[in-house]
């Protein structure tokens, strides 16, 4: 891939990152959305932005690289979902029962 193309890929990633970040912070500051909606918007924007960073800055793709790398990342995501999600679930459940 040419330098120009690669440089453009970083710039696209950067612009997308700003687009996914600044409106969320603006919405939080303005208080225009109800809490539940804002959290959903922020959560979806964050997941998309993480995907953008992996794609444009860290060059992780679903195809074209050795399989171990993708396994490593997907396994970490699974562990995080189990342990992080489990922690939040159990602690919220305990708090609700107290």
């Amino acid at each position, binding site marked *: 891939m040419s330098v120009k193309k690669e440089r453009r890929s970083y710039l696209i990633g950067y612009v997308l990152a700003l687009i996914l970040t600044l409106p969320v912070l603006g919405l939080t500051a303005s208080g225009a959305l109800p809490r539940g909606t804002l959290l959903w918007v922020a959560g979806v924007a964050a997941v998309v932005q993480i995907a953008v960073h992996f794609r444009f800055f860290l060059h*992780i793709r679903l195809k074209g690289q050795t399989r171990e790398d993708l396994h490593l990342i997907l396994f970490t995501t699974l562990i995080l979902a189990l342990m992080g999600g489990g*922690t939040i679930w159990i602690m919220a459940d305990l708090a609700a029962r107290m």
Partner: protein
Amino acid sequence: MNTRHPGLNLGAHHGAADDAAEVEIFGFWVFMMSDAVLFGLLMATYVSFLGATHGGPGPQTLFDLRSITVQTVLLLTSSLTMGLAQLAMKHEEGTRRIVVWLLVSLGLGGAFLALEMHDFLSMIDKGGVPQASGFLSAYWALVPLHGLHVASAGLWMLAILGQMAWYGVDDGVKTGLLRLGVLWHFLDVVWIGIFTIVFVGGLA
């Protein structure tokens, strides 16, 4: 496009450095992913303690969203300039260009840390110390840990700049800079989690 290891690949014309990178970058990714689990669990802890302010100051009193916005832009921009430094190295555009982009990244990272430190001090002024509540303990375990990572990455960059001055852009510098790039971009990903969960989640 086929790549040999996750992240930016130098390409075959870099010879031995490209071969060495395959094992070294993958190993660094394993370490990075273990770090991701650590950060993820601290975020889960923070979510569990959100609201557990125990009569102490809460997010509305302590967080400065404007400062967080500036910090976010600084960190995102430093990720771009870090990428440009790596591209300059990959395409052999000259040592000067690599050094300039690295110094810009370092400056942006330093500005981020200065703002963050300012926020920490103003939080302490308002009584937002770690021992004040479960919420604040969780906050201080998570956010300064990210700052510590950014500071360490800055020190690492200084070391690489020193190596470049001493040895030139040799194989060790190349693979080192590739690993630093992975860390730098990874810290950006962690920051996305932090500003979404800690700051937006806390203030929403």
